[in-house]
């Protein structure tokens, strides 16, 4: 789907502030294997979480992989600034910054991007099929990919807050830490996100006759 959007080399360079250093020791952590171990112990168990968030933020599997790798490299580089206690919001904050850079890059290279998501984002969902059996509806209700599609239609700040809460299971406080916004903002974004999803949801549950 995204094939041909970028040249692979260009993508890596754009993503990676550490691109030129990959073969070299990343930081002085190499001299401190205990710290390296602590970093691995703390962060690697959350790889699925970080990848999940990256998928929802970037809506592209291969971009998400690049972003996750860059996130871990940056996290390692800045590991000294980690003050705990919860590692997930800290990792997510770093991932967000990586993704911001990717948004900026996408925006700056309009010719190369055939962004099929931007157009659908503002549109009503497309699945108003008529004459469905109740069974089909029930199936659809529990279809993860249908729900993912709904989530993907949300605008970015709302999608982010929603995913952090519902899928990454963060508390409001942790979301506020990760996105660098007050808890009040988190709450109103979440309310907006759910309201938008609810409309889409209703549209899906009650197909137009």
């Amino acid at each position: 789907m995204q094939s041909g959007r970028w040249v692979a080399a260009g993508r890596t360079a754009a993503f990676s502030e550490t691109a030129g250093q990959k073969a070299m020791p990343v930081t002085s952590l190499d001299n401190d294997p205990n710290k390296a171990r602590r970093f691995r112990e703390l962060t690697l168990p959350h790889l699925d979480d970080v990848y999940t968030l990256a998928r929802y933020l970037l809506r592209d599997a291969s971009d998400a992989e690049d972003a996750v790798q860059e996130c871990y490299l940056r996290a390692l580089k800045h590991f000294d600034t980690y003050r705990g206690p919860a590692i997930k919001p800290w990792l997510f904050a770093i991932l967000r910054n990586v993704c911001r850079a990717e948004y900026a890059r996408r925006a700056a290279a309009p010719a190369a991007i055939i962004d099929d998501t931007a157009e659908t984002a503002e549109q009503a969902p497309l699945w108003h099929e008529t004459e469905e059996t109740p069974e089909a509806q029930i199936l659809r209700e529990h279809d993860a990919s249908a729900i993912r599609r709904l989530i993907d239609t949300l605008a970015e700040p709302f999608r982010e807050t929603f995913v952090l809460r519902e899928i990454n299971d963060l508390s409001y406080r942790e979301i506020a830490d990760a996105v660098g916004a007050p808890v009040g903002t988190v709450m109103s974004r979440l309310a907006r996100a759910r309201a938008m999803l609810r409309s889409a949801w209703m549209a899906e549950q009650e197909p137009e006759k």
Partner: protein
Amino acid sequence: MTCDEAEILIHALIDGELDAGHAREVEAHVAQCPRCAAALAAYRQMSQAIASADLRYSAPQSLRLRVEAALPKAAPAAAPAPSRRAILRGFALGSGVSAIAATGLFAIMLRNDDQERINSEIVSAHLRSLQAGHLTDVLSTDQHTVKPWFNGRLDVAPPVIDLTAQGFTLIGGRLDYVDARPIGAVVYKRRAHVINLFVAQTSNTARREARTETLQGFNIRTWSERGLNFWAISDIGADELAEFSEKFEAAARTNTEG
């Protein structure tokens, strides 16, 4: 409370983020406002559908290897003598060493005396929970109320699975302490018997077959799965407890795979 306020706060109510006082205020408003009541019901339903659909993504193995290769090598775990805290390391760090364990670089060994000590602490925690008013911090038969409650209280939210249909009623959740670390306890009932299910993250992702031990008249069934250590303890028979752990695991697998 106005509808405008409630519009925001019902979400905090669903997410278990409100303190008791505010929760009561929101509930009082919802009780006399049909519009907000409808919204709350709809959002609850939506949250449940989202929770029951598996919306997470798993990092592809290729990415896992890429990330691991990019990080500097870790020192092997300090010497063979396993730390007495090894089994509960995850509590403090909010982590395990799953990826490293998977590469076989080192495996955390559990010494028997550690297991025995933990088991006896599990018994103490179980006994404490049976004293009046100690059983649950959050009292609900709804897994979607119990699970969010753990969020923000523990680094690892224990899986909360309703097994009412299988004969084990979910009655709530509790924060407990074992080995001086906070640990999540999910509380079930079988007839009049209480089952405490303690869940802790482990540093070892290897699957460990369930086995039952008896201590001070209680049966304790322990197993490890998906990077979590489980201790189910109750005064019900060993066979029923085994049935509980099997039903729980079966439901947990459906949840993650479905």
